[in-house]
């Protein structure tokens, strides 16, 4: 993934749910505060997303926008895509690499 080399990306892995929500929130905010431009979240390793996880993605995007940049979701896994599609949010996020990686 060439994007990950040229731009900062934070990889979230495993379950993106209520159990790790507080910790993930800190990681995301900390990452966004460091990332100067075009920050991205690498979601290829996410196995599960619940409401708490979805909230974090929305929060991340909002924070990025408030900093004058936009957030990209890299390579979202099937479970991420499933939630985004269910909630009609695929177009709200800048999603890359989804088609190639999800047969």
């Amino acid at each position: 993934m060439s994007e990950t080399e040229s731009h900062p990306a934070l990889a979230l892995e495993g379950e993106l749910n209520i159990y790790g929500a507080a910790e993930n929130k800190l990681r995301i905010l900390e990452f966004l505060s460091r990332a100067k431009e075009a920050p991205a979240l690498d979601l290829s390793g996410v196995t599960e997303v619940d409401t708490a996880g979805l909230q974090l993605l929305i929060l991340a995007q909002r924070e990025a926008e408030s900093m004058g940049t936009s957030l990209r979701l890299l390579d979202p896994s099937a479970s991420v895509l499933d939630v985004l599609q269910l909630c009609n949010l695929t177009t709200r996020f800048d999603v890359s690499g989804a088609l190639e990686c999800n047969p």
Partner: protein
Amino acid sequence: MNLDNAQQTFIEESRELLAAMEDALLTLETTPSDADAINAVFRAMHTIKGAAGLFGLDHIVGFTHVAESLMDRVRDGEIAVDDTLIALLLGCRDHISSMMDAVDAGEESTSEDMLTTGMGLVASLEVYLGHPSEDGDATESPSAPSGSHTPAPTTDATGVENVTWHVSVRFDQELLRNGFDPLSFVRYLGTLGDLVHVEVIADAMPSGEEMDAEACYLGFEMRLAGDLTKGDIEDAFEFVQSDCTLRILPPNSQLGAYLDLIQDLPEDTVRLGEILVACGTLTERELEEGLRIQAGGAGASEEMSDDQPIQPLGEILVEREVVQQELVDAALDKQRRTRDAKTREARVIRVDAAKLDELINLVGELVIAGSAAETLARRSRNRTLVEANTTIGGLVESIRDSALRLRMVEIGETFNRFRRVVRDVSQELGKDIDLVITGAETELDKSVVEKIGDPLMHLVRNAMDHGLESTERRIKAGKPAKGTLRLNAYHESGSIVIEIADDGGGLDRARILAKAQERGLVQPGQSLNDHEIDNLIFEPGFSTAEQVTNLSGRGVGMDVVRRNIDALRGIISLDSNPGQGTRVTIRLPLTLAIIDGFLVGVGEGAYIIPLDCVVECMKCDPAETRCQDYINLRGQVLPFLRLRDLFGIEGSPPRRQNIVVIQYAGQRVGLVVDHLLGEFQTVIKPLGRLLDHLRGLFGGSTILGGGEVAMILDVQELIRIAVQRDAGAHAETAASNQTDLV
């Protein structure tokens, strides 16, 4: 979401619903048009269907759906209730119940038998669904389209043109922490119908640091298409109904309804309008019109005069569609009623029985510790300390009573179970039997309720089987053809009394006596009064083998019933009037945990007598008691037991002993004890397996204020011993008198 817990709740609630359904069906048997009962049956099917869907129990969803559709038609008056239908629905209830059992037992697949039963029932249901009753054409006019049928889009100016449901939901912030995931509800809605559009509302979420990652901020605006009812949608959120704000608009709702929605929601009006448009629920034009009306703007509504204040949105709807005022009222009224029902439901808290037991145990310890403190205070002779302790003691007593009351349940639920039993068994026996239940609101300890079911079942079946005569015999005896079985309950001096009475033929005393003699339970020549003969049927070894039928004769006799009642520290007795009927009376303690006791000393030990049973205490006059085992108590003979002798306590008794007069179920006996030690709140501790074989004399043990253990006397058994002894003595004196005569 913790699925295991939720599923357990689902199963429990379903069982309650099924019980309610059975009740309602039995009510319908007598009053086939009872609207509440019809609704209850519908609600049971409907709620179970919805909840089963949440857990992916498709077979239950499928089956209940058919039954629900049928009940929907019954509700609309399209299908009339008759006995065949009731029998069919009872069958459905039983089938769902077995499916629930299978789910509860963790069975993954459905058994062959169950599949066949299910298919048979569905086929019968389909017959009803395919053939509406004769007066069906009267209701076929499209006057009142039911919620489940999507009417064609209207062209009414104020009607909004869409055929989808609009579902708006906001959640309590604590929802995630409570283990629920709102997304799963959205997903579930997607299985009920077609989720045309979902809009995530994240407006409530604070930014950055302030956002609590474990709080739920999201809301959803959804458009849902499909053949479903409002109830279906509500049910999807049933488990979080108290933690969410749910608004559902049916297809083609009045514009005002959407405006109401906009007004109700926490978000900004313009933003919401945009959301509804984004959802496709409203068109731009509709939104504009709505907002214009809301603003009281000119043009759209000429009938409104300019000087009128801005109208609440609800009124706009009514004003513009005066004709539908009644409908709106009705709808509002219905909504309010369902809301009332829900708040009532919410006032009942489900508590794990184990937690309650834990609390009661702790209260028990508190009572013991309180007694200890009070004893110490009294010993210190410090008045203020004694007073303080007395206050605490009073409070502890109140806490004890409240804690015990938590476990109290009404006996009605247990009684109601018998309605079905009586119905089925009377059909099986070909007897016409009416069950009359009274005192259903009488409360008793849950642990007692759980153990009383089986003995009651046995007694009820026995009454139907042996007590009540066949219809022909009843008519011949000049009695009403329909037999009556009564279940009654009431409180009496710290006990609950349960009566099972029938108006049948009564017991055949001659046959009972003959059998008892044959079994050696009664010695030849021993004379018994009627009551004693009647109660012989509770004696172990008195088998009613001759009368064994497939109902009550399933291997257990009445002695088992008595043993069950004994185990509950209860007493059972029977009264019978030849030709008029039989009444079995069960007397049970209200609770098994704590009693008020009377403490007495015998030898070195201390013993507790349940205070309920203590009638009076008196000094023991050695002159009167030295050579006989009874005293003259105000002209009455009072037999007594010397506890020192009974317990085999050695040494000489103190000079002045006391007699405690105890009474149970009408019989009085005196107990000679060394000392009277006063009242004592007694927490009953089980004796444990090893000492359990002392049962009979001791009902349990308790711990005194000083930490010593005291045994609780079993009054019933002591009275039995005294009576038996006297009977023996009488027989002896009778025998010796005879020899004297000879």
